């Protein structure tokens, strides 16, 4: 953590492009955070059917022009930035968290470092299927039949309760039997690798498009799909870093001193793989912004009543002469992605340089 901050401070002092990018990102962050409190003349969805396709810079009210329904381009661009980042940041944060935990565990325990009793494995599988049934399948069915959500809560409670009983009540009994108390190695690493391979066996945009097609567009659905497809990159990175770190002498020293696995992972290993993960995070946010606006442009991303860069840009289809619909949101998008990429580029260089020394 400290090394990362030092890197950033060092880059801030030496690289003007990094400073510029960081300043831009900070300004953007402050703007979108304060956006609801800024007095703007229009709301993003306010129609003005008398002023459709207004060219920019020659109107007092619509400074950057209007789109096919008379919505103000400036306001839509600002709100598009807000919605895009409000989607991308939490999604990437959750995806990174999932990826780091899975990758670190897989890299640290490998295929034969973690042992489980056969009984525990059995109960674990039962718990998972119970949770799947009561917490996902039944609520989904109830929801699609339009039944009150109280029933779903009951079912979720039952699911958690039953798996709790299985784990704390049945597991201690079952592991008494000699067959079930045999220890087996839990192949965490291959399991993780297979899952990652499964998800990356198809191009990401293809998965996104085809799954987004099956349900009406919603922010929740889009975030879930993004998280499901984006955690693999971080997981792969964290696993590789963990494999490297686990060989280093200080981990061995920590084991000799008698630290538990948890202490070693949290106190020794995780701080050391923070920098690459932060780089991947910054890079991922840029890629999410780009892909979100691509999907919204194609009409399968954010719902149509949410302002987004892609939605504004899609207005060009009904009038090829309206260049301002592409130039302003698109330029904003490219600038933001560029700033994120410049940041991660410099960070990558400095961490690679340190690794080489």
């Amino acid at each position, binding site marked *: 953590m400290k090394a990362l901050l030092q890197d950033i401070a060092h880059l801030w002092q030496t690289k003007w492009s990094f400073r510029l990018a960081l300043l831009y990102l900070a300004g953007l962050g402050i703007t979108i955070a304060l956006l609801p409190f800024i007095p703007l003349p229009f709301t993003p969805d306010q129609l003005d059917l008398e002023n459709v396709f207004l060219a920019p810079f020659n109107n007092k009210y619509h400074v950057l022009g209007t789109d096919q329904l008379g919505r103000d381009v400036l306001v839509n661009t600002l709100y598009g930035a807000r919605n895009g980042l409000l989607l991308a940041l939490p999604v990437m944060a959750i995806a990174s968290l999932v990826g780091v935990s899975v990758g670190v565990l897989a890299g640290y325990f490998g295929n034969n470092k973690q042992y489980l009793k056969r009984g525990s494995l059995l109960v674990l599988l039962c718990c998972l299927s119970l949770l799947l*049934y*009561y917490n996902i*399948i*039944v609520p989904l*069915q*109830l929801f*699609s*039949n339009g*039944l*009150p959500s109280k*029933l779903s809560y*009951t*079912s979720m409670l*039952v699911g958690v309760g039953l798996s709790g009983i299985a784990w704390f009540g049945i597991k201690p009994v079952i592991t008494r039997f000699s067959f079930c108390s045999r220890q087996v190695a839990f192949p965490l690493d291959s399991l993780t690798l*297979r899952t990652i*391979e*499964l*998800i990356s*066996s*198809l*191009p*990401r*945009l*293809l*998965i996104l*498009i*085809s*799954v*987004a*097609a*099956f*349900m009406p567009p919603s922010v929740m659905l889009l975030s879930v799909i993004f998280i499901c497809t984006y955690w693999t990159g971080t997981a792969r990175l964290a696993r590789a870093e963990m494999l490297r770190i686990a060989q280093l002498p200080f981990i061995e020293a920590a084991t000799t001193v008698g630290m538990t696995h948890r202490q070693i992972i949290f106190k020794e290993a995780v701080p050391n793989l923070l920098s690459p993960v932060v780089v991947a995070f910054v890079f991922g946010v*840029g890629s999410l912004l*780009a*892909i979100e*606006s*691509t999907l919204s*442009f*194609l*009409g*399968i991303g954010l719902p149509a009543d949410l302002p987004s860069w892609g939605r504004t*840009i899609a207005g*060009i289809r009904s009038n*090829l*002469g309206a*260049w301002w619909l*592409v130039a302003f949101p*698109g330029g904003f*998008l*490219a*600038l933001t*992605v*560029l700033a994120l*990429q*410049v940041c991660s*580029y410099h960070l990558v260089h400095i961490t690679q340089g340190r690794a080489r020394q």
Partner: protein
Amino acid sequence: MLRYLFRRLLYTIPTLWVMVTLIFLLSRVLPGTFGQEQISQAGEGFYSKGSQQQRNAAHEQLLARTNQHLPLFYVTFAPLATSQATSNYSYLLPDLTWNGTKNQYHIWAAALFTGSLGESFASSRPVLEILWEAAGNTIWLLLISMALTIVLALLISVSIVQDRAVKRRRVLLSFLILLDSFPVFLTGLLLLLLLANPDALQLFPVFGLGYHHAGEQSGFMSFIVNLPHLVLPIICLVLAELPYLTNHLYTSLKGTLQADYIRTARAKGLPQNQVIVKHALRNALLPVITVLSDMLPALVAGTVVIETIFAIPGVGRLLVTSVLARDFPVIVGIVVIIAIAKMLSHIVADILYALADPRIRHNQK
């Protein structure tokens, strides 16, 4: 080598199968079937002026034609009875039914083994036929842009790796970073606005590919006729792929130039150009083979966007239109085809790698 390939196939096919099955099941398990909204909407709509009864009958006929009335999988949960759920807790008990082989998944999978991808919901034509028609345009686009990208990336990386080219390197690398921050659809739209717009420069036609019917001319002639339509899309794809590939080639070339035999070649007095082209490039190309096989997904993503923007009747636009029409057999068909293409490209990359570098022997281990 053969044994390695065989093992690799054995590994990949189940993964692919699971993924494709997941996509298939997801496409069917969610509420809302194809045509439901249009046919069974209440009141008089665009699609039907008949009574509710007639509409329900039409919907049922559609379901029967597309096999959607069958249960989804071998084992399914019985549907919830609404009245029972609100009165007591019996809805919490799982109620499994065994459907035998008469289910949607079995029929679909069995058809897949015989090489059929089913029929489109929208047009009742075989999916394979629709895909074949669309693939003609996409394949040209992909092959040409891939070849151009490789050539350009080679030229750029060779020209900037030399010691003297510090200034050129800086300019080109920053340009590539800038280029990388433009999503494909933005590049496409900007090119469209600049080069195919009556208000700016109208060098290329915007839409209209597929207007000249391919059947009338031989393959090459139709390609020549269609070329002006393909220029802008190809430029877009090349620009989208160039930064990634050039970066890899440049890094790999720079790494190779540190090797001892390069120093020997320089000590012999060979000119810089010859050292790079004759000695370094061949070894530097090796890791790039893997990168090339990774290019496929990016290209697929690119074609989806590019074909939508430039109205090219190819696979990408087919995907988007069938997504918007919820034509699931076509979507799943495209997924299957691309998954197979990706698997094949990885295997080809493996073979090429082993052929190019005799040190790699997969049999050992």
